[in-house]
């Protein structure tokens, strides 16, 4: 079980990727596509281990917007996992969701916001919420691991019940900022 532990102060580990997987399952998601992110590592593994999910690795994030549209045409629900830097790749493809009313559930792990050490991640990370809003995607923030099940379930209801595009933005603070050992 992953999670933060300390020799002196054990921290209760909340398996939030398992909670997201559980929310996707309970909401009837059958196709999960992704461009990998370290923050999505465990969720991707859980999806690959789930024989009742079609799991589709993508070469670029906008492929997942189209995949979800095709899934819905065929009567299935899809979810798309990506890092915030992938949001910019999706802008024109999001025409599909906004123009046709395709439900779309995107789960975004944020970079470039909390303790980011890589300057190349910051512009797209900072622009992610506004980029999604301008492209017609509603956003929900996930700041605390304990809220993962409720937030993703709510987002799925908003997407599939409301026939719209919805993104859950998982706070970089919650995931833990990547450092590559780059300590000051």
């Amino acid at each position, binding site marked *: 079980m992953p999670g933060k532990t300390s020799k002196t102060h054990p921290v209760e580990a909340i398996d939030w990727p398992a909670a997201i997987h559980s929310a996707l399952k309970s909401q009837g998601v*059958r*196709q999960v596509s992704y461009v990998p992110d370290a923050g999505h590592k465990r969720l991707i593994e859980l999806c690959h281990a789930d024989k009742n999910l*079609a799991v*589709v*690795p*993508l*070469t*670029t994030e*906008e*492929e*997942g*917007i*189209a*995949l*979800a*549209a*095709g*899934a*819905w*045409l*065929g*009567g*299935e629900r*899809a979810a798309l996992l990506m890092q915030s830097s992938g949001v910019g790749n999706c802008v*024109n*493809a999001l*025409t*599909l969701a906004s*123009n*046709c*009313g*395709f439900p779309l559930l995107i789960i975004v792990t944020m970079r470039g916001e909390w303790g980011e050490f890589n300057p190349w991640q910051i512009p797209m990370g900072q622009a992610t919420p506004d980029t999604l809003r301008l492209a017609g995607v509603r956003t929900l923030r996930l700041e605390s691991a304990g809220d993962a099940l409720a937030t993703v379930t709510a987002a799925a209801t908003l997407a599939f019940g409301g026939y719209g595009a919805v993104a859950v933005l998982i706070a970089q603070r919650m995931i833990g900022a990547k450092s590559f050992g780059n300590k000051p």
Partner: protein
Amino acid sequence: MSGAELDRRKVVGALLERRGALLVVAGLGSAAWDCTAAGDHPLTFPLWGAMGSACMIGLGLALAQSERRVLVVTGDGEMLMGLGSLATIGAQRPGNLAVVVLDNERYGETGMQKTHTGYGTDLAAVAGACGFADACIIRRNTEIAAVRSGVYRGRGPLFFQVKVKRDTLPLVLPPRDGAHLKHRFREALLGKGAAAQ
């Protein structure tokens, strides 16, 4: 690279006549007009935008409807914009998916500028290298029956790069309201109850 003899409307007409339960995704521009010229159909989803998306919509549909045959008809420019989707399809290997690229080596909607196939890109070789079960270039009328056979019965994913003449043909436009196109497709495929899902 010129001298193609195939007529794109005749090719698409031959593939879509007596189409039975076939599900079709049509890439934006001339490919969508060609599919509409063969007969507007609720089980054709024509694109008016989102260039580069046609193959991935076909993949999502093929995964969701594994018992149905799915055909993506698109142009060389649209296919080039979504080239990575060939690798994604190659990784999934859906047996029920076929892709037909009508390749006139030009961007037909924007002034007939050369596409990369006009500069030598071999899309069928790309698809083959990505793991499609079969991928070939089609140049002759006598080969169209084999394309049709592949689309309806072949073990996919299949890729046909059909070299077509550079005609500018009369526009035959499908409906362009995306919500309408989505609803009619789902209702025809999934039944009246689809609107309540």
